[in-house]
């Protein structure tokens, strides 16, 4: 295992310590571990996310003005625990409540729901919105449902901007759900990653093989095929996204009247001729940014062929899987509201503009 680490058991804490001293607008707390903006969210809605570590810059790198107020990093690829989320939300929430942005992995969903229950018991208003944008998975009945991928980054950006504008909690939660319905992603891997704990690759991939439809936890994808050119890979991912049919599934949501979590049927948009979109061409961690531009070039062409115009783009490492080589593509349909909020100033370690 070739990593710049000291102790496989402590990597998350080690890294958080460095993160804390590197970014003076951000505080890092330990036991339970979380990252928060200095000053918290006082008079506006707090935006909080979290998930396993190993996806950096997600989520800690998006803490800062105009994006997340706090992030909870779990162990590598392991969702954080409810007490972390509880403490993080408590630390930053003012009287406007907290939006939790949750990627759809069993562990993240369950732990965030438990934390939401604890926060509610503590008198804090909390909404919990699930991001499930991975079009690689077609059905939700016989699986844990679509995973949360790159749309999470756009949801965090846009909701953070809405909070800065003073939106109330219900409106931001509705916005977050809209971004989720508007966003679709798919990824692939050229290599497996190695978690510090295991110390050897999570899956074996031959020198001539690749995995299509991977998540972000080093888990294998939905299909293994012979390695293809960047253009062919981009066609596969982009077509899955652009031709994805309206995806219907139940998403769990707190029902305040009933006082329980209920399943709400939720249906994605499909991309239509004339749509505008925000694109992310995301490196999985071990792929040079230069190669991502080859993918972006083809993506713009394929999107254009479908009548979809990319009006904003992020090309780089935004939601990673340790040192995995590979790429994921995200397209989020952009209406005027989303674009305005996307363009609003943001100042975080990983995303910064307008300030």
């Amino acid at each position, binding site marked *: 295992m070739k990593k710049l680490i000291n102790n496989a058991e402590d990597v998350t804490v080690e890294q958080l310590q460095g993160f804390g001293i590197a970014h003076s607008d951000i505080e890092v707390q330990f036991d339970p571990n979380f990252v928060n903006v200095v000053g918290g969210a006082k008079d506006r809605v707090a935006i909080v996310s979290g998930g396993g570590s190993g996806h950096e810059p997600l989520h800690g790198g998006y803490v800062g003005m105009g994006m997340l107020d706090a992030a909870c990093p779990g162990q590598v690829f392991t969702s954080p*625990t409810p007490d972390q989320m509880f403490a993080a939300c408590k630390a930053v929430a003012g009287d406007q409540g907290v939006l939790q942005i949750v990627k759809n992995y069993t562990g993240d969903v369950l732990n965030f729901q438990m934390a939401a229950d604890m926060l509610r018991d503590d008198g804090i208003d909390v909404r919990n919105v699930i991001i499930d944008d991975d079009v690689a998975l077609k059905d939700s009945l016989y*699986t*844990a449902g679509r995973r949360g991928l790159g749309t999470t980054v756009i949801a965090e950006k846009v909701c953070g901007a809405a909070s800065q504008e003073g939106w109330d909690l219900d409106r931001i939660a509705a916005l977050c759900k809209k971004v989720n319905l508007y966003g679709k992603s798919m990824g692939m891997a050229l290599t497996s990653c190695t978690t510090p704990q295991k110390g050897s690759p*999570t899956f074996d991939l031959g020198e001539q093989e690749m995995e299509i439809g991977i998540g972000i936890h080093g888990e294998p994808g939905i299909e293994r095929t012979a390695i293809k050119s960047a253009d062919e890979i981009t066609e596969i991912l982009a077509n899955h996204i652009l031709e994805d049919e309206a995806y219907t599934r139940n998403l769990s949501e707190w029902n305040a009247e009933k006082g329980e979590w209920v399943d709400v049927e939720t249906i994605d948009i499909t991309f239509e001729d004339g749509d505008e979109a925000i694109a992310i061409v995301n490196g999985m961690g071990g792929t040079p940014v230069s190669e991502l531009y080859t993918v972006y070039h083809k993506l713009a062409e394929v999107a254009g062929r479908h009548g979809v115009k990319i009006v904003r783009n992020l090309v780089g490492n935004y939601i990673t899987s340790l040192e995995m080589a590979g790429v994921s593509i995200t397209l989020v349909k952009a209406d005027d509201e989303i674009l305005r909020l996307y363009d609003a100033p943001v100042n975080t370690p990983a995303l910064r503009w307008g300030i």
Partner: protein
Amino acid sequence: MDRAMGGAPAVLTGSAVRRWVEKSAKVLAENRAYLTDLDSPIGDADHGNNMDRGYKAVLEKLPESDDIGELLKAVAMALISKVGGAAGPLYGTLFLQASKPLTGVREMDGAALAQFFDDAVAGVKMRGRSDAGMKTMLDTLIPAAEAFRQANGDGDDLAAALRAAVDAAEAGMKATIPMRAQRGRASYLGERSIGHQDPGATSSYLILQALADVVAEAP
């Protein structure tokens, strides 16, 4: 421990529950790499670390009490706050749900233990929106709970009924190999999840076996 004829304990005492927890921690530590390896081909290579970290925390938090409800609640809370992932809330809910009727209880007979297993299963099903045949820990827990209730009803002593439960658990665990996963991370793999033993089903088996061992070894 009280003993029925033949020297086998007739009830599970608070101190036996503590020994169970300690034994579970030991067994999970020993099987850490094994469980993580099982979680590699169909998961994210952390289950052994998660369970080991969780049970280490459990040991630190375990009260001196003999109140079984209190003990199991402490197990639940430690797992919930230290494991994370899917296994944390699921095992946490298992112990939390099963501990509820046991507050103030200092020893459990066969019937109480049968109820304990049923409550445990119900907790996981509720939290995980899952059931038998989905290639999860429930494929170990459900047959184990059923086998225990059966054996206990047939008049087996605790140790024998637990042996029956462990045998059923082992069969259930192995039965996950040909299953196609429908819950958890392995479900993303679809067909390709077939042929691999479920890590959570395996940790559940180890925890049940630890209980059977503790009761069998009981002084």
